[in-house]
């Protein structure tokens, strides 16, 4: 039975926002991992030896967590992982900007090239707030049972 309270609407909105954005962001990176590896390389932050490992794994974390958020499965854990990822992204973009690199941010894959900018950092921080909210509120409203039944907002 669905129990509505003041968190119901914001929680669903935050879940769909984060979930859909990350699903969209992951698809193109999964389709062209080589392009994503090149984007990671362009940041010049990571040792070359782990660039491919990051390019292989990050999109799948995004996709799986995004799907979980949309379906309402493992909401807190997904938000937790995505918030960490967003934190890493905003730090990476900030460092690139401070170093004066004009590179593609690699956010949505090679089909939607967008240069790094402080606006991107702001976007990421905004999404982090949504993620943190989902972790704190622990709502499972409109989640698919039988997952996480013991947690109620």
């Amino acid at each position: 039975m669905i129990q509505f309270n003041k968190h119901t609407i914001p929680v669903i909105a935050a879940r769909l926002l984060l979930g859909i954005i990350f699903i969209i962001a992951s698809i193109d990176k999964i389709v062209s991992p080589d392009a994503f590896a090149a984007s990671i390389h362009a940041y010049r932050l990571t040792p070359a030896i782990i660039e491919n490992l990051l390019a292989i794994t990050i999109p799948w974390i995004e996709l799986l967590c995004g799907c979980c958020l949309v379906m309402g499965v493992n909401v807190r854990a997904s938000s937790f992982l995505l918030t960490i990822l967003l934190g890493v992204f905003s730090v990476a973009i900030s460092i690139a900007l401070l170093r004066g690199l004009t590179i593609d941010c690699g956010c949505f894959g090679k089909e939607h090239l967008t240069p790094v900018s402080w606006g991107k950092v702001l976007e990421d921080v905004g999404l982090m707030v949504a993620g943190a909210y989902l972790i704190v509120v622990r709502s499972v409203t409109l989640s698919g049972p039988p997952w996480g039944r013991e947690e109620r907002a």
Partner: protein
Amino acid sequence: MTTPEGHTSLVKESAKLLLYALLCAFMYNGFSPKGLPLIPREVKKESVADSALFGGGSSAPKNEGAPHTPDSVEALPPDSAAKAVQPAKHNETFRIISLDQFKRLRAQKRGILFDARTAADYSVSRIPGALNIPGQEVTDHFGEVAELPRDTLVIIYCNNPDCHLGRMLAEFLTAIAFTDILLYDDGWDGWLAAKEPIDTMRIKK
């Protein structure tokens, strides 16, 4: 609301989710034809000596003459047809030419010039006479390169020595049996820095 047990379950759940994601990622990467090697292979580059490019007297360069155009199609000899498609060669050594060598080849009108940068970059400005074959969309341009004789001298440029698009294109051309591929490694940035002429006529799609 935030009990210690709550924290451990969050971390445990996250670790589980992460594990699933990694499992999917590596399985997909293993089966995907576009899968990446887990550890990036080293890029091997070697400079080409002037004598190899311009001939040391007696040994005449085999690609002398007018640049091949798509009109001058030569059928492959039947015995080489079987070898026409080879598996992509990894650990390929890329043959690098300098600006001087590149300019000399251009002056002699030898070879065909491919721009491996993105279509967006190419549409704004390019080295005069270059054909755009973006390194990431090589298969979309297969028709443009397929009809060229495989011993055509191909010169590729990209943005700079870090640019992987030029190497992707070179690997693709090697895989479809082109034998004479040169990479102008300083690429577009080097060309601009040397203040060489560029073609800035906008190309609209």
